[in-house]
């Protein structure tokens, strides 16, 4: 029996109205992603990959179509439900790290837990544990400005994983990093995802990153032109 997919996307379409012109970002996407799959959405800029990520994360509504994640229809939620949904189920790794500058590494990592209303003691302990796991045990009270790009992104990863979400979105996670750091970071993200059996969607235009995924979905002009599953190459 075919298991219910963790993510099911049906007939997804997104068009933007820009002045008198209609720009179609996503033509028609049908997609199923299984629980625990590490998926790379690959494409050049303008292919619609970022739009797909935004729609999946419920950050903007599609023009047409439906997205169901873990049995919940994201496309029918209102703003508050979406916030709660992201809080509980989704972790984000951003290209520009997006750490809050006035918070320390620990506070940044603990932030998603604060949104859930967790007690300071408990969330600080959780944040410290994750920071230690990403190798920043000695940077707990540093501010983002006092850390290198690679360190900041590791804080970002810690923040994405601290709530143990079922789904991780990584938007060009190594776009601002050199190739050596890229390898460390990718190994770390993928390692975490596999360890906790979390589903991950990596959006990138860097073919190097595709090598870390179980499945590579290639987008061009708002359509899937290639969907390739492969044996995992990493433990």
């Amino acid at each position: 029996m075919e298991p219910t997919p963790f993510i099911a996307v049906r007939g997804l379409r997104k068009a933007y109205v820009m002045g008198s012109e209609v720009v179609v970002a996503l033509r028609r996407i049908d997609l199923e992603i299984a629980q625990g799959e590490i998926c790379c959405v690959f494409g050049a800029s303008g292919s619609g990959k970022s739009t797909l990520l935004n729609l999946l994360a419920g950050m903007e509504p599609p023009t047409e179509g439906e997205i169901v994640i873990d049995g919940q229809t994201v496309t029918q939620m209102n703003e508050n439900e979406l916030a709660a949904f992201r809080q509980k189920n989704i972790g984000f790794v951003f290209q520009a790290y997006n750490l809050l500058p006035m918070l320390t590494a620990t506070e940044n990592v603990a932030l998603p837990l604060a949104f859930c209303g967790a007690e300071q003691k408990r969330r600080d302990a959780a944040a410290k544990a994750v920071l230690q796991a990403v190798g920043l045990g000695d940077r707990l009270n540093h501010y983002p400005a006092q850390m290198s790009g690679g360190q900041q992104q590791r804080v970002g990863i810690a923040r994405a994983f601290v709530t143990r979400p079922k789904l991780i979105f990584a938007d060009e996670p190594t776009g601002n990093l050199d190739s050596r750091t890229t390898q460390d970071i990718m190994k770390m993200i993928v390692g975490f995802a596999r360890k906790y059996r979390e589903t991950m969607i990596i959006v990138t235009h860097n073919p190097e990153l595709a090598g870390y995924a179980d499945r590579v979905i290639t987008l061009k002009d708002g359509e899937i032109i290639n969907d390739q599953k492969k044996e995992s190459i990493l433990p």
Partner: protein
Amino acid sequence: MNLKDILQMCAQNLRRRKGRTFLSVLGVVVGCCSIVCMMSIGVGMTASQEQWISEMGDLTAIDVYQNYMSDTKLDDALVTALESTPHVKTVAARLGLDNADFTTTISAGSSDRYVVSYADVAAYEPETARQLGYTLLEGKLPDQKGTVAVGELFEYALTDSRRPEGRNTVEYYDPETGEELTGEDRPKPFISLTGGKINLSVTDENGKVIYSESFQVVGKLKQDYNVGSETDAGVLMQAEDLKQFCFNAQKAANIKRKTPAYSAVKVFADDINNVSAVEEAIRGMGYETSSMESMRESTKKEMATVQLALGGIGAVSLLVAAIGIMNTMIMSVSERTKEIGIMKALGCCVADIRKLFLLEAASIGLLGGAVGSALSCLISAVINLIYLQSGSAGEIEGSVLSYLLASPQRISVIPLWLFLFGLLFSMLIGLVSGAYPAGKAVKISPLEAMKNE
């Protein structure tokens, strides 16, 4: 997010932009100071008005008069009725010799050398006398049979019957300026009645003494017309003594014996705010009343208007401060667009973001209000200091305004409610001016987090 986290975050954000926070707070401080100081002057004026009125008489006192149109009398039945009227604290029924149908004189000294032909004689029940608020210069109130207290200037009312006209009195005022002499400057009277006696005598139409009674002077009253004219140059005695004296006098003069009528009835309300209700009740019994209430009522209204006008002037600067807060918060929101987007992407709910910005604005208001209110107390003290110095220079008498200017009273008064009002109103202003920027913040899309500059 729980409140503690939001507060913490709000404090962090305010600290991050110290300069701007300081300037916004400063705006509120100025606004708060202007409104509190303006209103404090209003409060001060109201207080001095109140004092001015109260110096003219006790504000809770109501004088009860006979209504000559109806058949009402100032008698014991009235006193009983008044005592059972709600909100009446004390009923002071005054017995006197004004309505007596015989003539009395008061004399003192050996062989009645010093005489006063007319003096205010007032008699109360001992209990009532205690409640009337007499101030004693020396001794005590009459508390035993045959004892009296005399008014402050009673001794100066005595004329020496052995000296010629024009030199038979000692004046307590300067004969040239007419100014009252006090303390050491005041000349000694012919006779000191401290520990002495006075004689109350009844004379017939030929001036012959037909009856006399002697009273021990046990106290001297401080002059205070609010309490009664007997404090000036009169005599205060016990109701029982006076009644007995009257009966004896009537007997000696061969007049029909009758209980003397009350010369005046005064009622004290338990609270200044119940005066009109008590007056209403007494009028309902068919008597006339008078009190300071109507005057107080009109000045109260007048003062409320003044206070409103002063507060309004102050409010303008607080309005400017409110615009300042709004400006600061809008700047802050647009500066933090990305941050807000990130927070939303990470699952911060809309309500928390709104709270965050509202709280930030309210904190600026509260901070400004706290400093402003505290500073206002200081400014108020300085105003009063300057005012006191200038006030002692020129003394004008006559109008209310000149009285206010001449009285050594504080012109600016900040009661606790005004302090708290300054504090909370400033916070409210912050909250209100934070509403629009907070609304803007709430509308920011989580997509802002995805943008890469």
